[in-house]
Structures are given as C-alpha cells and as structure tokens.
C-alpha cells in the first residue's frame, strides 16, 4: 500500500516538473520578445522624433530620417494590396465554389500549398529575372508590389477559403432555391458573410509584406534615396499620375538593414528607431487581425 502511494506521489511529481518545464519554455519565448522590444526601445526611442520621421537619409546619423522609406513602404503596400486582394479572393472563390473536385483543382491546391513554403528570397530572384529584366519594369515600386503580392497570395487564398468553408451549406442551398446562379450566390451571400474572415487574412498578409526585406533586396531596391516618388495627384488634368509606379524606392526594412550594416553605432541607434516604427506597424496590424478574428468567432452562430 505504501509502495503504491509512493509511486503515485512520484508520478505526480514528474507531472509537476514537466508542467514547470512547459511554462519555462514558453517563458523563454516571451522573454525573448520582451528583450527584443526592450532593447529596441533602449537603443532607439530617443531618436524617435518628428524630424526623424520627416527627414531624408543622410551621411550623418543625427540628420538621417525615415521619410522616403515610410512613403516607399506605403506605396508598395498599396500596389501589393490592389494586386493580391482581388486575385487571392477570386482564386479562393474559384477553388471552393466553382471548381469541380478533380485532378486539376487538387493540383492547383498542392501548388498553392507549395508556394506558401517557398522562401521569400526565391520570389525575389523570380522577380529579378522576370519583372526587372524580362518585362523591363526596372527596379521600381511596381516590381516590388508585384513581388510582394505574389508572395502573400497564398496567405489570402487560405484565409478566404477558411472563411468560405465556415459558411453553412444551407445558405448556398437557400440561395440556389431562389433561382440564383453560383455567381449571384457568391456575390450577394457568401462574400458579405465571409467579409471579416477575409479582412483578417488580408491584414495578416499585409503585415507580412510590410516586414519583408530579402525579396526587395534581390530586385535591387536602393537603400540610399534622398527624394520622394512623384505624387500620384497633380493639379493639372488628368489629376492622376502613375509615374510613381516606375520610380526607384526604398522601404523601411531595407533602410533598417542598410543602417545596421554600417559600422558606426550611431547608425545602429537610428536603425533601432526605425525598427520600433516597423514593429509598431506589424504588431498593430496583427493585433487588429486578432481582434477581428475574435469578433468573428463570437458572432458566428450559424
């Protein structure tokens, strides 16, 4: 009887030890992220001023600013979103609502799964060969937007498919019973019902795209840019100009990389300041996505 008690106590002890091990491992992850954030703030927060955000890069760390990188990131994100969002949603709708379950559609699915795992730098090499030299688009904002759009396409497709699959079959059947075509069902019922799920996916995709460095280095984004692309709005007709699409550019991650690779520690400090801005953007986008996802789950009472 005592033996049994001792055995039980020993097993409980092993369990308790493992519980502590689990918490410790999770703590290492959380500590790392805290150390990272703390280190960035410690190094960079004193440089994070309004003039830093609105100045151009310079040979002197104290005069350098983030403005071209901020504008570049914004413009590249616009191109990425304009290309990737419609394309990704359309592909997902096709695969879930239109495509017959045959070899072709499972081939496309396998393809998308594989694309999601291709390293981002490979997308950069493809864009270098095809967009920069093949189509002659140059090292421009348009090339960068296309590269990142193709890179995040699988994320948007997967999120949209998940949202579509969570819609119960009865909704589709009710719509068909009213004589609606597949497209009418998709347009009037399925897309509106899955909107917040799709939005979550789009935000995650953009937060990934805004932090990507490697593919943009590969297509040759410049890291020293002391001018802004041409404004998309003009005073003369036709008021809209698309010259900015073919402009050279830099983005925040590339600017950070450039500053980190310099030997002077003053540049490391402004790199930290830029990293704070970048992290606020990516974590902010992720937080929005998380809230949206939680709200979708709470509302979903099919």
């Amino acid at each position, binding site marked *: 009887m005592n033996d049994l008690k001792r055995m039980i106590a020993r097993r409980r002890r092993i369990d308790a030890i493992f519980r502590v091990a689990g918490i410790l491992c999770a703590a290492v992850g959380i500590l790392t992220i805290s150390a990272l954030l703390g280190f960035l703030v410690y190094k960079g927060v004193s440089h994070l001023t309004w003039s830093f955000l609105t100045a151009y890069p310079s040979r002197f760390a104290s005069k350098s600013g983030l403005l071209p990188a901020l504008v570049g990131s914004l413009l590249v994100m616009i191109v990425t979103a304009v290309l990737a969002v419609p394309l990704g949603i359309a592909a997902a709708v096709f*695969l879930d609502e239109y495509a017959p*379950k045959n070899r072709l559609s499972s081939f496309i699915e396998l393809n998308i799964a594989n694309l999601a795992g291709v390293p981002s730098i490979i997308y950069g090499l493809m864009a270098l060969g095809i967009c920069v030299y093949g189509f002659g688009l140059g090292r421009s904002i348009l090339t960068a937007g296309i590269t990142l759009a193709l890179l995040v396409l699988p994320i948007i497709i997967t999120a949209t498919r998940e949202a579509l699959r969570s819609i119960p079959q009865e909704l589709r059947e009710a719509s068909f019973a009213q004589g609606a075509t597949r497209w009418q069902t998709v347009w009037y019922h399925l897309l509106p019902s899955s909107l917040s799920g799709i939005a979550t996916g789009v935000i995650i995709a953009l937060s990934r795209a805004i932090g990507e460095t490697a593919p943009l280095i590969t297509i040759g984004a410049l890291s020293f840019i002391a001018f802004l692309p041409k404004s998309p709005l003009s005073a003369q007709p036709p008021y809209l100009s698309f010259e900015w699409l073919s402009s050279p550019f830099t983005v925040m991650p590339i600017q950070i990389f450039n500053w980190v690779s310099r030997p002077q520690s003053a540049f490391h400090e402004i790199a930290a300041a830029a990293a704070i801005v970048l992290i606020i953007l990516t974590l902010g986008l992720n937080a929005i996505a998380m809230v949206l996802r939680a709200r979708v789950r709470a509302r979903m009472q099919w």
Partner: protein
Amino acid sequence: MSRLSIELDYPSVHPSSADQSFQASALENDSQLGSGAAALTRCDWKRARLMDRLMGLILGACASVSVLVTAAIVWILFREAFHFFEHVSLREFLTSTEWTPLFANPRYGIAPLALATAVTTFLALLVAIPMGLVIAIYLSEYSGRRSREILKPTLELLSAVPTVVFGYFALLFVTPLLQRVYPSLGGFNMLSAGLVMGIMLIPYVSSLAEEAMHSVPMLLREGAYAVGANKLTTAVRVVIPAALSGIGAACVLAVSRAIGETMIVAIAAGMQPKFTANPAEGAATLTAYIVEVCLGDTPHGSIGYQSLFAAGATLFVMNLGFNMIAHYLRRRFREEY
C-alpha cells in the same frame, strides 16, 4: 477514403442539371403571371447565367495564377542555372570547397554555402524542436483553456516580428551577450544567428504540433488515465504516437523555414563564404550569398548573376523536398481521425 471525407466536410455546390430544370419550371410559373414579366425574368435569367459563366472563367484564370507563378519560378531558376552550368562543371560545383565567383580566380563549389545553411538550420532546430514540442505538450495536455488562449497568440507574436529586426537583435544583443561567456566568439557568427532563428521558429513548431495533438480524441487519453497513467505518460505514450505525422509535419516545416530564412543569417552570420562547421565563426549561407551579390552591382547575364540562380535553384530544390514531405505527413494526419 480521403475523397469521401472531403465530400463529407465540404459537400460540393454545383447546380447540376436538376437545378437547371428546377429553375426552368420556376420560369414557366412566372409566365402564367403575365408575358411581360416573364420576358423580363427570362432576359434577366439569361444575363445572370452568362455572368455566371463569365465569372467562372475569370475566377479560374485568377486561380491559375498560382500555377503560373510556380512555372515562372522553376523556369527562371533553372534557365539561369543552366547557363551557369555551361561555364562551370557539375563536378566542380559539387566537390569544390571554395565559393568565390566574383574573384579574379573564381571557384564555384556550393559546399561552403550549403554547409553554412546546414549549420544554422541545425542550430535553429536544436532550439525550436525541443522547446516547441514541450510547449505543444504543455498547451495541449496541461494548460487550461484560458491560459492556452493567452499563451498561444503571445508566442505567435514571435513569428510576426520582421526578420530584419531579429537580425538586428542577433547581431547587437545576442552576440555581445554570448561574447561575455565565450570571449573568442567572432562579431559575425552562426551561433547567435542559429539561436535567434530557432526562437523565431518556436511558434511554427508549437502551434502546428499543438493542433495535431489537440485533434487526438479524448477517448484515447481517458483510456490511459483509466489504467493509472499520469499526464506525461499519456502524452508521451498515447497522444504523441497518435499525432506523430502532424508533429512530424510541424518539424519538417520548421526545417524548410530555417533553410530559406535570409535576413537573420545575412546580418548576424555575415556574408563571407567560408567552409567551416564551427558555429563560432561567421559564414555565408545560400540565402546570405544571394543578398550579398544583389547588394553589389552585378551586370545582367554575367557569371555572377547566373551564380545567384544556381544558389537559388539549390535552395529551391532543398526546400521543395522538405515541403513535399511536410505536405505528405499532414495529409496522412488528417486522414487518421
């Protein structure tokens, strides 16, 4: 069997010919109401059908973009790599231990780059897989619902941080920290790059493995508890074997991420190709080499430009292999229950 389960989960939605005849009979009812209304409805219906067909084609074209992208990647990588191998023998590529394509006396052995990739990947996995699995077991078997729902997203923040920021952290925080313990450690070293990459990969392993373990039916666990097993024994002897292919997929996916990771190794392990397996030294990985060449001004069509694609193709092939294994494992794990 897999076909059946797919059909059960997502019944296909295709208005078959039965639907069409149903729509047609609805129209006949309309025509009894008044010929004008019927004509209008018929016209609308025709337009809607046309629109449906058209959108089907457009959506199909959008879906095939992914196939085009894959084709473009394969084509461009292997075309340029082919040109590369017109200058360089495959033997030299595979057996030489020097990689100096931009030097006056160029050598083209992929081994230094591949070895550095292997070392950093191995170090990263040494951190990510044990820690990721312990966290997965903890989340799935030990923690309550509440703490799981807080811990999991918090850990996933690790994978949301841009890799260039991790590179900065590895170079300027982790390396100096390690140098206090090992003063002989170089400023660029594979050790800190690998460790930071491993921590970045923890959520990839833990989330996927936890999902796999979570989907193991409760009945199996209850069986183990009923014969007196504690939670750890249940996890190790029952849950992990049952979720093995999902856990395997999580680990393989981490491998493929680590191979393709660029910025952390480019910043913290340096960009000098060096044939060494010593983690305390810096060496360029396949990805870091690509970054290094692209930062310079390498003319289009030169051997330096082509060497990019040779390195890229090597990376792509390694990565594709691991992705295929992961895909296969995940499919198996989905079929099990």
